[in-house]
């Protein structure tokens, strides 16, 4: 077995940090604005962080040379997004009556389904 030391790549580190920070910020600020309407949007658009996420995401993909799989993290993220989507859908679909529960279940499972499809297509 040959051990290689991971090479430090400054651009990749910066763009990865930018992407993760922007994405986390977008989620946190957006949720803060949902919980307390106007908390963020009175002063600036929360979508600035989404724009930053997209920009850093593109830059990161351009400088990324090696991709390390972390399936456990992916699954955890998919479950987290599923829960968030389910909660949001439950709140928004109050008028849908009997369709509310199946719709919530479907949205809860959507991130896992998408993740499974993306993994199988490789």
């Amino acid at each position, binding site marked *: 077995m040959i051990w290689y030391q991971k090479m430090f790549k*400054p651009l990749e*580190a910066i763009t990865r940090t930018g992407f993760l920070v922007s994405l986390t910020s977008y989620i*946190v600020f957006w949720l803060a604005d949902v919980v307390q309407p106007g908390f963020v949007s009175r002063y600036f658009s929360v979508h600035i962080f989404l724009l930053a996420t997209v920009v850093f995401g593109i830059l990161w993909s351009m400088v990324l040379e090696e991709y390390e799989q972390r399936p456990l993290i992916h699954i955890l993220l998919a479950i987290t997004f599923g829960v968030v989507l389910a909660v949001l859908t439950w709140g928004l679909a109050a008028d849908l009556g009997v369709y509310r529960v199946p719709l919530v279940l479907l949205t809860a499972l959507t991130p896992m389904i998408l993740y499974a499809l993306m993994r199988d297509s490789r």
Partner: protein
Amino acid sequence: MIFLTRFIQFFLVAIPLTVMVWLVNLWFVPSGVFVVEHEVGTSSAFIEELKPETRVTDVYENEQDEMVQAIKQDPAFFFLHPHREEFFDQVVFDVWFQNKALPIVELGGLAGVNPETYTLYPLHNRLIDESTWNRIDEGGLVLLQREETYGSLADFFADPPSRDEVAVYRTSFDVPYRIEEYQPTTSIQTIDASLRGHHEFKTYIKNETLSFVFNYMDMNREEGEDVVQVIVFNEQNQPVAEARAGDDGNASDDAVVGYGLKELQLTAYSLPEGVYKVVMNTTRDVFFRTIQTPQQKVVFLNTLFIGDEIGYREPSQGTTLYTESKRLRFQTRHAQGIQTITAGEQKLDIAQPYEWYTLTLTSEGLESVVLPTGDVETVTEGTFSFSPSQYFNPDPVSLNAYTTIEQLGVDYVLAQYQSPRQEGDWLVATVPFDVADLYEEDQTWKFSFSTPLIEELGAELLIHRIDTWFNHY
């Protein structure tokens, strides 16, 4: 290289953290003061533009490159959206304006709905500012004297002149009103007019029981419960008696009158001599058909809504009012309310619904105003009675936009007023509102500019900035 990379990563993480700290600071307002500076024409999440568009001009740039918006009709208003309306105790405006022609400009905060009532504060009173009388400014009060008699407001209050000599503006003059020759009687007088919804009146009591019997109908034309509450306030504005009746059990808008005429009795014994204010607090579904009382003096304040008499008696009998006010405004909301109002030799056509019509009376003293079919709202800065003998004027004469100080025939004017300061070409008035006095709906407060005579004079009020301080004590 690693250090630089780590520094940039730290910087990227620090940006949203700093923004979050900034937002939390804005939300919790640890200093207790939150300031919103607003120039007309700029968008703001806190303050909306002046409305309605039919009463204001578009925003434009003047020769000094300042943004300006002109109010051309009365009233123009704006909405304020505080981010924590329950947190703040006071809202203070700095209004930057120019006023070349209007005698009085005020800013009002919406204090209640059904009917809409405003708490008004002066922005600019040119009658006071341009008066040549001797002027004393102390503690937010102004005293104008035809001849210099008092050296200070303390002297004035220590030895006040008689009520007839004083006019007031946005303040009270605490010399009690008394009718020396007044004798109580036991004969009952009946006010036979349909009064719709909330009303206020004043009466005089001397060695007698305050007694009113209200006969009313709950017409159930609008959704919601229709509770009737009548409260009596003494000269210190303290409640001293109350009568209350619940809803008829029909909270719908089906216009079904289940119980016909209902009766509410208001009685208060052993009241000391003085003027008492009675507030008839209810919804627009309630029509007071008659009021019976042994009290000889009864004057209604500022607003009368003479209701239709559908389902009570037809044809509607209308009513006759008596007033010393010289400017009255009328509006009907129904085609059936179109009529010709008569005041002495003068006639005024109420030609269409939802249009305000102004009647200017020219005769001196008490004048009768005949409303032949009712169903009309009447507004004035003064009082009304339903018979000449019931009329009295318990309040000192009031300075308003439709008179001059000389016309009031007084020697003193006492006002709660602070003249606006000059900032370049602009006058800046500071106006404070207690949040407790403001009606809030959907995190919104409404403020309205009162600009009487603006259309008659062809004048305009130019607004440049409205800066707001939200204060928490």
